[in-house]
Each structure stands twice: as C-alpha cells, then as structure tokens.
C-alpha cells in the first residue's frame, strides 16, 4: 500500500503531457503566461537534466534559465505530436553539453562545490542536500542521468533511452542500480 501512495504522489507532481503540449503551443504563439506555467511545471526536470550533465549547481542553474529563454525563442519548432517533455529536455541537454564543452568542466567536484548546492537556494532542506549529494557523489554519470530524469521528468524509460541514446535495457538496469545504491546509502547499509 505504501507504494501505491507513493505512485499517486509522484503522478501529481509529474507534469501532464497534454498540458505541456498545450503550454508549448501557447508559448509558440507568444503567450508569456504559458511560458511562466511551463517554467513552473518543468524547471525541476530541466534543472535535473542540467545538473546530471554539468555536476555543478551554478552552471545547472544558468542552463536552466537559458533553456526557458531558448524555449521562448524556438517553441514554434515544437511538433505537437511528439513528447513535449522530451523536447524541452533536448533543449536543456544541448545547452548543458555546450556549456560543458565551453567550460571543459570534466571530473569530480570539490567539497565546496557540493556545498554550493543548498547555499544558493533557500528552499533546499538538509534532506534535499543529502539526497542530491547522494545522487551526485555515489552514482555513476549514466546512473545519475537516468535516475534524475526519471524522478523529475515523468519520461518513460523508452523516452529516456532515446534522449540519452542508450538501449532501453541499459537504462532500466542503470535505473535499478541507481535506486538500490541510493536506498543503501540512505539506510547507511554497506552493500556487499
């Protein structure tokens, strides 16, 4: 029963596909209110995508903001038959990869950079910090991307696979492994 409750909660938080579709179309018509609603509904997912690639809170925040400016500029190119969230995240991913190339920021983060995650956002709780640090510090790059995307975007595994250019089976195994690692970490249990 616990899982049922969890699923329901998640469904409420995950942006609805049809609603996003409508919002993107309205944004393409120049309605700033639609962009504002889009921002409200998807900024977490966009930030998750950006953070999973950049591994730096400040850069991820910048890319998140830039993504919505880019969406405003190019929403008319969105084809409504597709997945709106996948389209939004493709924009974010491209910008994040470009930022990564520009900054040549490859490799691990310093302790200061980890601490920068909550420092910039008053809404971030100690628990948020813990779970983000767990995701960023204990997961491999691909595991982190998959789990952050699945957690925040509501994309299906097949859509995540397409977005990350991985086989679905790989996405599934990385997702499960990531979740197990996080479970283990949260429980403070050393797995074998």
């Amino acid at each position, binding site marked *: 029963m616990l899982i049922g409750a969890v699923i329901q909660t998640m469904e409420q938080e995950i942006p609805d596909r049809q609603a996003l579709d409508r919002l993107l179309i309205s944004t393409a018509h120049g309605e700033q209110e639609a962009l504002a609603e889009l921002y409200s509904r998807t900024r977490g997912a966009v930030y998750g995508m950006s953070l999973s690639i950049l591994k730096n809170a400040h850069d991820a925040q910048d890319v998140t903001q830039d993504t919505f400016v880019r969406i405003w500029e*190019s929403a008319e190119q969105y084809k409504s038959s597709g997945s709106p969230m996948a389209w939004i995240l493709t924009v974010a991913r491209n910008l994040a990869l470009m930022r990564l190339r520009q900054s040549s920021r490859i490799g691990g983060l310093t302790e200061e950079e980890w601490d920068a995650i909550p420092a910039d956002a008053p809404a971030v709780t100690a628990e948020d910090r813990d779970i983000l640090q767990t995701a960023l510090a204990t997961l491999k790059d691909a595991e982190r991307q998959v789990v952050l995307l699945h957690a925040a975007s509501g994309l299906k595994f097949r859509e995540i696979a397409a977005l990350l250019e991985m086989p679905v089976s790989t996405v599934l*195994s990385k997702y499960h492994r990531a979740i197990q690692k996080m479970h283990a970490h949260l429980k403070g249990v050393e797995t074998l």
Partner: protein
Amino acid sequence: MTERNPEQMLAQALNHAAPDDLHTVLSQCGAKKGNVIDMTEATERSTNKKKWTLGLIAAVLALVLLGGAGGIFYHQSYAVASVVSLDVNPSIELRANRNEKVLSCAAMNDEAAALLADMNGGADLKGTELDVAVNAIVGSLLRNGYLDGLSSAILLSVEDDDQNRAVRIQEELVAIVDSVLKDSSNEASVLSQSLTADSELKARAKESNISSGKAYLIDQIIAKNGNLEFDRLATLSVKELRDLLKAGAPGMPIGIEAAKQAALEYAGVKGNNAVTADVDAELDDPAPHYDVDLYLSGNEYEYHINAYTGEVLSGQKNILSVKPTPDTQTPSGGNIGTQTPSGGNTGTQTPSGGNTGNSGNTGNTGSAGNKTTDIGASAAKAAALKHAGLRENQVTNLRVKKDYDDGHIEYDVDFIYNNTEYEYTIHGVTGAVIDCETELIHKKASTGNGNSSSSGNSGNSGNSSSSTDIGAEAAKAAALKHAGLRENQVTNLRTKKDYDDGHIEYDVDFIYNNTEYEYTIHGATGMVLDCDTEPVRGQSSSGNGGNGGSSSSTTTDAGAEAAKAAALKHAGLTASQVSGLRVERDYERGRLVYEVEFRYGRMEYDYTIDAANGAILDHERDYDD
C-alpha cells in the same frame, strides 16, 4: 528517512534546488531577434591535452534579403532550407530541407570526393536525416585519418536564414560530432558557426572549391591582414586557419605539403615511397611551426619547420646515413625526444616499433589502427541491409551508430521496412552480424515477446488517426499474460491509456508478491513495448536468499558468490586484484540477475549475470578519467 522513496526525495530536492526566478527569464524573452549571430565555440575534448581556445569569432554577416530570392518556391520537401558544411581539409556540403532531410551531399574539393567515394559520391546520404549524414561523414573522416593529428580540428557551419533553426541544428550536430569523436577516443576539436546566406560569399567559396563556412573563416583572417589572398588561404586546413586567426594572421604560412616536403628533403628521403608523414600545424605557437613526423622502417623522426619561411628548425638530417640507436627507444613508441640541435644527443631518433612489437605510432595518433580494423559505417550499413535482403532505397529511418562493446567496435544499424523495425549490431572489424532483431511497428506482433494478444476487438475510442485500439482490457490481459499471472493474483492493478508520438499505448501496473510490474502495451497490437519490474521495498541482498520478489519466472538462483566469480573470470581478474567489488540482486524483465561491479586500476567493470546459470547477460568496461 529509510521509509522514504529516494526517487520521490530526488524529485522534491530538484524542485527545491532548481532556480525559481521567472522574472529573469521573462526579461530576456521580449527581445527581438536580430540578424547578428554569435558564432562558434571551440570545443575542447580533453583536459590533458594542450589547451587552446579559439576566441569567439564575431559573426556579422550581411543579411541576404529573402524577398529578393527570385520568387521561386519549391515544395517544402525539395527546397533547401539549411546548408551544413563540414571542413577539415576535405570540404563537404550538405543541403537539407525544412525537415532536416538531406537533399544533396557535395564534395567541394578532391579530398572530399575521395572521402565520399564509398558513399557513392555522397548520393547514399540523400534522403537521410542530417544527423545521420553528419555522423557518417565524421566517421569517414576518422577512418581516413583526417582527424588523427594531435590538434586536428573540424569546422561545422550551418547556413540558414532561420537563425533559430540554424543555432539549433548547430547545437545538435556539434553534439553528434562530439559524440562520434568521443566514441573514437579522438581528441580533435570541433569549431562551429551559424551564418545567414550571403550570395557573394557563396560565389567566392565556389570559385575556390571550399564551403561557405570555410570561406567565412577566411574572411575573418583577411579582415585582420588585408595582404593575405583568399585563394591561397583556401588551400589551408581548418586547423591552420583557426591557428592563424588566433595568432592575428601575421603572414601566409607555407602549408602542410610544403612543410612535409621541407622535412623530407632535409631528412634525405624525398621521393622515398617507404616514408610516411604526419604533419601538424602549430601556427599559434610563440614560434609558429609545423610538426612533421616521418616514419620509416618502424622508426619515427620528428621535425620542426618554420611556418612562414620553411626553414628546418630541428630534426635529424639524412636519416638513411644514421643507424637508429637502440638505447634511445621510447618504450611505447611515443613521441620523440626531439633532436633539437642544442640537445647534445644527436642521434636520438626513436625506433617506435622496438620492444612493443605492434603497430607503430601509438604515441601520437591513437586511432591509426582504426584505418585497417574499422570497416566503417557504410560497410556496416551494407552488411545489415544485405542480411535483411534489402536495398537502401527500400528502407526508411536508416540510422548507423558506432559503438564500443568491451573495447570492440560495433555498429548499431536500425531501419524500417514494411512496418517492421530492424535493429542490427554489426561487428566493426569483420562486418559480421552479431545481433538482429525485428519488431512490428503497426501490425500485430507475430513473434518476439510472445503475446500477439487478442485479435481485432477494435477498441472504443481510438482518436489516433490510423490504428485501431485494442482497449484497456486487452492491454491488461496482454501484460498479465506476459507476466504469467492471473488478475486475481495481483493487486494495485492500474491501466492508463496514453499517447506516444500519436500512437496509443497502455501503461499497465500491478503488484505481485512484493514486486511492482510496469508494462507499456502497444494500443493497436497488444505487443509488450516495455516491461519493468522492481521490488516494492528496495533492498539489495547479499547472499542468494533475498527478498520476496523471486516469485515469477526464475526458478534457481546460483547466488551472489557464483555471479561474482563468473564476472571476475570473464574479466580475467581475481577478487584480490580488484577494488570496490559490489554484487547486487536485481530483476530485469522478470529475470533474476546479479549486477556485479568492481574496479581494476582506473577501469570500471559492470556485469549483469543471470542468477539461474551464471551466464553473462551484459557487461561494460569504462575507463574512469
């Protein structure tokens, strides 16, 4: 906290940590888009490489008025919307329509013509997606060694009157080029730019047999030094042009061929067919020069040639008269201890073959081996099509992607024919078909996952244009059948209708014996599109006992130790040699598996082992840099 779902916690944390500053976004959204496009970023692909960055090339191109274009309107499919050019020294131009399908692929110079020979002169790329074509061309550039140099560069230019589209295509294609280079462990840099059409620039580019993108780069150089001639600059490679621009264009470099000839002459081997050469331009160096490496009989000789005068700055003269000294070998065939005149150790040319025994110049051109071992994307594509008994013009959505599996090159070749999706894995060296899967797209599944499901109780709603809808009940039945369960055995059964790309799908979820099942069922065929199982309470077990989710299909469990042993044996390692060894029990598609991870040095190994028999289902090896 242990009762919380980590995914839910992550989603919440991301919402809290994500920027919440709509005002800043909106303040940037009203600006009218102009015609001046910021161009380019230089891509650095490696942190351990010598760093150079190209300053942003300011792009101010005259806007060509669309209205004067002659008033000829083509059908959308045939009208050229974007021109994408790829320049290394070969210059190739792709013309694409608004749907980003290639209308033509043209070689702009002889080197490009040679490069495109195995793609039917570029005709094979007609009708493909832009990204597929770019992928194929970059793959060919790699195979033919054009990006082997230590500091090679590729220029990608997108010309389009729709600036937003140009920038988007630029970003997407740069990501693809970057990915192809990364997959090949190639450290070439990617330069990119977006430009609007300019007929005058196009004309000059055509006269010099180069792309508009390269012509634009040359214009930037001439703007810095008006004494330089367009035609002569057009003969330089992208890497030379980039360096020249960065150095402020002080003069006209002698060029790669002249540098090579100077080195050959100095070495006394001009005209000797046994000598091969690699040349790298270092025009942005404080002492601008060309690095020329000559290879002869397993020995490597390095020369520095003044970039503007052709004077030999360093290198071994008359190499045929001096025998290599064995004690100056570099063990791995690496770069030479340059025999600069002041170095004292005169005869320091380094036999690179020496004690390694295999394939020469591992030092500076790591991908040299690919020239002989990698069959290339075109051959892989041909192998897949041949296996399927199809010709390329019969199929659609043809995509070829290079991949590595455990250090071996593979090509994933996908295409669609007659509503069937073909997925091939082709051996990158032998061209053998490693794997082949077919999947029906619209029609009823006849093979594969088993459940062709009920026939045409064509469903209720079906607002999808073409297909029928099997309905929620049939979707539920298909999922249960796949899981081998009856409805009265499961709980929390939920069925939800969904649309994906215009197609009806059903998401069917249920719980059985502490395992959550998540299915995606094709709304028209009842085929299982996706299946996922997960223990209701996440637990990672150590031994072979474990959780309650072991109900469904797996009957035996060899245990974690056996899985660990199988993985280590496959890797050729022992437990005492590795670190970070983890074994986790998991379910994949209803099958009990063990995920085994460990590290050996900086190499990370991931294995998926069948719990029933210890078979290796999947394995990956990544170098952690």
